[in-house]
C-alpha cells in the first residue's frame, strides 16, 4: 500500500494516482537514466568534442590566446566529468573507461611521472595515434595527462605548430571523445544496461527486479557522498594546518580543485533530486525541507567564499579561517550522507545491511 503523501514527485510524473511500489521504482530508474545519466554523459561528450577542436586549433595556430581558450575548455570538460563521475555502473566502468578518462587518484605520482617522461623525451610516437594511445597505460591517456600537457608545458606548446606535446594533447582529446562516444552509445535506448534497468527480470544477469535497480542508484548516491568526503576533501587537509596536502586534490595543477569538488557535489545533488530520492523527504515538513536546503546552502556558501576571493586549494587549507570553512563543508557533506544513507534505504525499503553495504 502506498500512502497518499509518499512521493510528491509522483503526483507530477505518474499518470495514475495510487501507483504501486513497482511503478514508483520504475519511475526512479527511468528518471535517473533520462534526466541524469544520459544528459550527464551527453554533456561530457559535447565538452570533449569541443576540447578536441580547441586542441586542433592550438596545434595549428599556437598562441597564448588559443592556449587560454583550450585551457578554459579543458576546465569545462573536467567539470562535466566530475558532475557524472559518481555513476559507478554501466559503460563508463567497462574496459577501464573511467580510469582511462581521468587517472586519479595518482597517489604515488606514477601516472604523472609516465606523462612527464613522454613529454621530456618526445620520442614515443605511439602516443600520437588515438588507437595506440588507447592501449597504453591508463595513466597517460586521459584528462590528468592532458592537464600536465596544458598547464605544465606552455612554452613547448607555443614554440611551434604541431609540436609533440600539442599533438599528444590532441590525441588525448581525441581519445576522450572516443570514450565519451562509447559511453553515450552504451546508454542508448536499445542497450543491455538500459533494457535491464527499465525492465528487470528474474533471469537477467545484472538486475533481477526493480529494487535491485534502485539499490544501484542508491549506492551511487551514498558512495558518491562518501567519496566526496573521504577521497576528495579530507585528504587535502593533511595532518595539521602546518602540513596541508593541497596536491592531493584532483586537478590542483590546473587550479580546478575547488571547482571539481563543487561539480561533484552538484552532480550528486542532481541525482538525489531527479531520481526521486529527494522527494521521499516529505514536502509538508517545512522544518526538514528547510534543514536539507540549509545544509546545501551552507556548503555552497563555503565554496563560493573561496571563489569570490579567487583562492586555490593550497590557500584554503593553509589559512586558519579558510581551513575552518573547508572543514565545515566536509562535515556537512558527511552529515548529509548520514541522513540520506539510512533514510533513503528505509524509505525505499532497500537492504541496509551491516555487512553488505561496505563489507570487507
Amino acid at each position, binding site marked *: 500500500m502506498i500512502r497518499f503523501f509518499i512521493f510528491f514527485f509522483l503526483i507530477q510524473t505518474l499518470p495514475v494516482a495510487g501507483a504501486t*511500489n513497482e511503478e514508483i521504482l520504475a519511475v526512479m530508474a527511468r528518471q535517473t537514466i533520462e534526466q541524469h545519466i544520459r544528459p550527464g554523459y551527453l554533456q561530457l561528450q559535447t565538452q570533449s568534442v569541443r576540447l578536441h577542436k580547441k586542441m586542433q586549433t592550438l596545434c595549428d595556430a599556437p598562441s597564448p590566446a588559443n592556449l587560454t581558450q583550450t585551457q578554459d575548455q579543458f576546465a569545462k570538460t573536467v567539470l562535466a566529468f566530475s558532475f557524472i563521475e559518481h555513476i559507478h555502473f554501466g559503460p563508463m566502468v567497462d574496459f577501464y573507461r573511467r580510469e582511462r578518462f581521468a587517472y586519479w587518484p595518482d597517489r604515488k605520482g606514477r601516472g604523472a611521472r609516465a606523462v612527464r617522461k613522454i613529454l621530456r623525451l618526445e620520442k614515443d610516437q605511439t602516443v600520437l595515434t588515438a588507437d595506440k594511445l588507447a592501449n597504453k597505460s591508463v595513466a597517460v591517456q586521459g584528462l590528468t595527462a592532458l592537464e600536465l600537457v596544458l598547464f605544465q608545458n606552455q612554452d613547448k606548446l607555443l614554440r611551434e605548430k604541431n609540436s609533440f606535446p600539442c599533438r599528444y594533447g590532441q590525441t588525448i582529446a581525441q581519445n576522450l571523445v572516443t570514450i565519451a562516444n562509447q559511453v553515450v552509445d552504451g546508454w542508448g535506448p536499445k542497450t543491455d544496461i538500459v533494457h535491464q534497468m527499465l525492465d528487470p527480470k528474474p533471469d537477467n544477469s545484472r538486475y533481477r527486479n526493480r529494487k535491485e535497480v534502485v539499490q544501484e542508484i542508491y549506492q551511487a548516491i551514498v558512495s558518491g557522498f562518501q567519496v566526496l568526503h573521504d577521497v576528495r576533501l579530507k585528504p587535502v587537509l593533511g595532518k595539521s594546518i602546518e602540513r596541508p596536502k593541497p596536491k592531493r586534490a584532483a586537478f590542483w595543477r590546473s587550479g580546478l580543485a575547488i571547482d571539481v569538488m563543487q561539480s561533484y557535489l552538484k552532480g550528486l545533488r542532481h541525482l538525489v533530486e531527479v531520481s526521486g530520492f529527494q522527494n521521499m523527504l516529505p514536502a509538508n515538513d517545512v522544518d526538514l525541507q528547510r534543514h536539507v536546503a540549509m545544509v546545501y546552502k551552507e556548503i555552497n556558501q563555503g565554496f563560493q567564499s573561496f571563489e569570490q576571493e579567487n583562492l586555490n586549494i593550497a590557500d584554503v587549507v593553509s589559512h586558519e579561517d579558510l581551513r575552518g570553512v573547508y572543514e565545515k563543508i566536509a562535515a556537512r557533506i558527511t552529515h548529509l550522507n548520514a541522513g540520506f544513507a539510512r533514510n533513503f534505504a528505509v524509505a525505499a525499503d532497500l537492504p541496509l545491511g551491516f555487512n*553488505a553495504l561496505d563489507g570487507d
Partner: protein
Amino acid sequence: MPLMVIDRRTFLHGFLGLAGSACLLAIGHTKTALPLYAGARRDQDGTFSASLFNASGDVQRVSLPARGHDVAVRPGSQEVVVFARRPGRFAVAFSALKTIPSTRFFAKQGRHFYGHGVFSPDGKLLYTTENDFDNGVGIIGVWDATNGYQWVGEFSSHGIGPHDLALLDDGVHIVVANGGIETHPDMGRQVLNLAEMNPCLVYINRLTADLVEKVQLSKSLRQLSIRHLGVGKNNRVVFGCQYKGPSGDRPQLVGIHDRGQEIKFIHAPNDLLPDFKNYIGSVATDRSGETVAASCPRGNLIAFWNVANGKFLGHQALKDGCGLAPTNQPDQFLATSGEGVMARFSADNVTRLRTDQVHWDNHVTFVS
C-alpha cells in the same frame, strides 16, 4: 514492506548517527548447547564490541574503540584476538577466563591491520595481515603473544592488500589471500589501483619468511579480489572473492587450490550466481574439511559445496548473513548476520538459535 515517506524525526535520527535497526525482533531462543565462539559486532547502543559466547549468551565481552572484523584463536587457551576493520590499527586480546585482563595493542606507525590474523600452533606467535600503506605493499606482522603482544617482526605478504590468512596443517606454512587492492587510510576505503589489480594466493614458510608458492588469477580475472580463506581436507585451500569489475559481469567467486596446482573455481548454478552480487563475505570449511560454505551478505544467502569434487550442494537464505564457522557436527556451520541472527546451517537444514539486538560483523570464529 511498502515504500514509505521519511518523517523528520526518522531523518534526523539518521543524521545524528543514532540509528538502530528497526528489524531486530527476537524470534525466540533455542536452548541448544553451543560450543564457544567469538565475533565482533555493533551493539544496540551503537558502540562496538567483541564477544566470546555460547548458547546462553556472552561469556566474555570487550569494548572496542571502533568496528572490529575477525577474531584469531590462540591454541591451547580460551584467548582470542579481535582485529580492527581496515584501516584500523588496534587489536585486543581477551580471554574467556575473566581473571585474565584484556590486552590492547596497535599496528606500527605506517601500518594498519586488515582485520585478520592467525596463531602459530604453539600459540606463541601471532601473524597479522597489514598494509604498509605509504609503500603500497602487503605485510605480515609477527607478534609475541607470550609477552603482551609485543611486535617482533614482519615480512612481505608478496602482494598488495593481504586480507585473510590461514595456517596449513603442517603448522609451518601460512596461506595468504592478497586481494590485490591498494588502499591508503588517507583516502578512506577508495581503491587506488583498480586498473592494475593483481590478486594472488601465496604460501609462505612462517619460520623463514620464504615465499614457497605464488598463484595468480588469469588476466581476465585480475579484478577478482581474493579475500577470504578456508582450509579443507588434505590442505585444500578454499577461497572466496569479491569482484571489482563491471557490475554486469558474473564471474564465479569461490575457488580451490592445491599446492603445486592451478587455481580452479567451483561453480554455483548459473541461475543463482547473479544473486551472489559479485561478493563473498566469508568462507569456512566444516569440521570434516569436506564441505565449504560461503556467505553472500549482499545476496542474503549462504551457499555450500563439496570440497573434494567441487559439487554444489545447495544454498540457504539469511538476510545480511556473513559470519560463518564450523560447528562440532560435520557439514554444519554456525552463521551470524548483521541483523543479529545466529543459526546453524547446512545445505539442507536451518536451525535458528537466537536473535539478539546486535549487528554481528563479517566473521564468527569457532573457539572450542
